[in-house]
């Protein structure tokens, strides 16, 4: 192998032992210190930015930790029980049920809890690939909306609960999930209609999409509250929750349609032609060839629309429903808990942050999973 092993005695290159030992890299360019130097202190400008960032963190983090945990109060019946300088969490104990369930009858809350627990097996086969028992779970997913509706509203022997007792985070979830489930198919239909060859269908779709996207959701909610009763015969009334869900769905579907249209436009013409050459008709071509590809590239936009929709469920407080924000706003106005705005709204914000942030992380995961582009 080496020259030595051939026993010639004439090594024409240096032996390992003759070489100077390898020196370790200077401490300033490897390890934690090196990382700091290249990432945070490379040049006066970068150093300045780092110092500013450290200063900001130092001004923000310790006071927040102090306020939330160290100097806060957790027990008491009203705000006067909170004597420390920090946050007052005494209301959590009393009000948590309202924040979660609104005015839902206390002895029936188990039904909502079951519906929420069942949501996870219903979502699982849609969210993750390689779930065991996928077939059975998929049937369950299809049945879930009916099961959940019966559980929450009542029927089949369960005591009926009027929708005006719904509230808290439960209301956000109901409006948000219904909107998400309904707006995707409506959005797909609108997007296909907008790209249709039929002029009347196309024009109507464009009019609907542009009109809805041009106005704030708030005015649409007002329309559902004020105008709908004028448009309908006097004996026909809609439940206010149903009206909200319809409006939220219509609003998101218009945005969804534009997102999906973008995806459809990105599919090369050859895909359509190949599908037609194989003898597929319009619905088969769309369902088997075009939409799977178009929806895949639209995932970030679709999830963003879902997140927007979920955040927009807070707008129901402006037409007199009490979602989690409405409950919080009412509590801040209550003399017992007046002046606790920061605590209340930070608490409410956590709920939305958890749900919306999970959705956006999931979309990143899904993008990676569905990425079938050939890599070079």
């Amino acid at each position, binding site marked *: 192998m080496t020259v030595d092993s051939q026993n010639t005695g004439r090594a024409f290159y240096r032996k390992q032992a003759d070489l100077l030992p390898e020196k370790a890299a200077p401490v300033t360019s490897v390890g934690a210190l090196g990382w700091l130097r290249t*990432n*945070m202190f*490379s040049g006066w400008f*970068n150093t300045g*930015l*780092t110092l*500013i*960032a*450290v200063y*900001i*963190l130092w001004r923000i983090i310790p006071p927040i930790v102090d306020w939330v945990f160290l100097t806060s109060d957790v027990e008491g019946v009203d705000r006067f029980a909170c004597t420390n300088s920090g946050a007052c969490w005494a209301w959590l104990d009393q009000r948590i049920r309202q924040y979660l369930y609104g005015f839902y009858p206390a002895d029936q809350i188990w039904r909502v809890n079951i519906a929420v627990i069942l949501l996870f097996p219903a979502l699982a086969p849609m969210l993750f690939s390689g779930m065991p028992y996928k077939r059975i779970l998929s049937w369950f997913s299809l049945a879930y909306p009916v099961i959940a509706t019966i559980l929450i509203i009542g029927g089949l022997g369960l005591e009926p609960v009027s929708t005006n007792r719904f509230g808290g985070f439960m209301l956000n979830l109901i409006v948000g999930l219904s909107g998400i489930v309904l707006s995707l198919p409506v959005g797909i239909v609108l997007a296909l209609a907008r790209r249709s*060859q*039929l*002029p*009347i*269908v196309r024009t*109507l779709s464009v009019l609907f999409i542009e*009109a809805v*996207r*041009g*106005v*704030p*959701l*708030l*005015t649409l909610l*007002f*329309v559902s509250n*004020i*105008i709908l*009763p*004028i*448009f*309908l*015969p*006097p004996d026909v009334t809609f439940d206010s929750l149903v009206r909200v869900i319809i409006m939220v769905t219509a609003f998101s579907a218009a945005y969804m349609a534009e997102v999906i249209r973008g995806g459809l436009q990105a599919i090369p013409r050859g895909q359509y032609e190949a599908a037609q050459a194989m003898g597929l008709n319009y619905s088969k071509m769309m369902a088997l060839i075009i939409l799977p590809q178009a929806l895949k590239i639209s995932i970030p936009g679709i999830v963003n629309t879902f*997140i927007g929709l979920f*955040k*927009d*469920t*807070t*707008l129901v*407080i*402006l037409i007199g429903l009490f979602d989690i*924000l409405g409950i919080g*706003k009412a509590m*801040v106005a209550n003399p017992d808990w007046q*002046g606790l*705005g*920061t605590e209340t*709204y930070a608490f*409410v*914000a956590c709920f*939305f*942050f958890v749900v*919306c*942030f999970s959705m*956006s992380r999931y979309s990143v995961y899904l993008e990676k999973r569905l990425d079938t582009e050939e890599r070079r």
Partner: protein
Amino acid sequence: MAAAAGIDNEAKSTNVLRLWTDERARGVILQVVVLVSLAAFIAMIVSNTLANLERAGLDVGFGFLDNPAFFEINQKLISYSSTSSYGRALIVGLLNTLLVAAMGIVTATIVGFSAGVLRLSPNWLVSRLVATYVETIRNIPVLLQIIFWWTILIELPKVADSVVIGGGIYLNNRGVRLPAPILEAGFGWVFFAFLLAVVATIMIATWAHRRHDKSGQTFPVFWVGLGLIIGLPLATHFALGQPVSWDVPVKQRFNYTGGFNIVPELVALWFALSVYTGAFISEIVRSGIMAVSKGQTEAASALGLRSGQTMRLVVIPQALRVIIPPLTSQYLNLTKNSSLAIAIGYQDVVATGNIILNQSGRSLEIVGIWMLIYLSLSLLTSAFMNWYNKHISLVER
């Protein structure tokens, strides 16, 4: 209906089937069905509406806009009192919408561009910090943020213990009180000097550009222009004996007099919308800059451009093409989100309209006005941004 004309009566059933398999005929049938059902739907709505209006004893018309409004508006850009008409109240509301939208668009753009560039910074700490801001703000409803800032602002100290910021600016639970400029005779000349400086700068820029094209010599247009635009009005200002004085707020027993006040509702709405939309804009800016390939930067430095020039002449013009379309929709979103003003009592066009609607019962007309206003704002903004987009877009073969 050309296809329908050829139907043979004798073999009706097979022909109907054939009609359905013929793509063109199917299209026509589908559209006729859609049109007829739409017409039926509209007819139903119109007849219901007419019946309902008749029963309620209402008529449809815009004559009510001349009636006196009898309500106060706390923030107004034009003169308005409670005896002014409904129409005037709506205009005050519309101006308030435009005011907060314009203010929000300017600050959200600044916040968004800074955050987007900082997020791409090689500085780990800074980019993490900005990422935290963006991810937190984007995932919390804007309505919650508006109400939150408003709650903080109205919990500020009372007038008696206002927070003194300095320079005649005071902060209390009635809002922000600022010194107001008083323009005396001769200010027109200062303004004229400013206009003159702007025109001169544009002319110098054109001349420098032409000279650069011809000879390759550069000229410091930016610094000369800045000097002109700041220096000339300032020189005129002092030459004429300072024709602008400041009406500084003075503390009286119950409130401040002098200066002008920005209501807390406007400040909260403006701040929340800027921070919220800024987070979205920063993501747009980030993806826009990342969309410009690294080869462009390398080519620019191979040509001998300095890093500032690379950014200004090579990267940003290309990034803008990616940035402008989604930026437009963020501006529109901000304008539409300003309608959430009603939650905190800032009287924009939706809030004033809502009061009028409750007072007069004119729901159809008011909702019509809202739709018209927002749709035209959307169309105007997108028309302008489309024009700008065309102006900067890549000219291809």
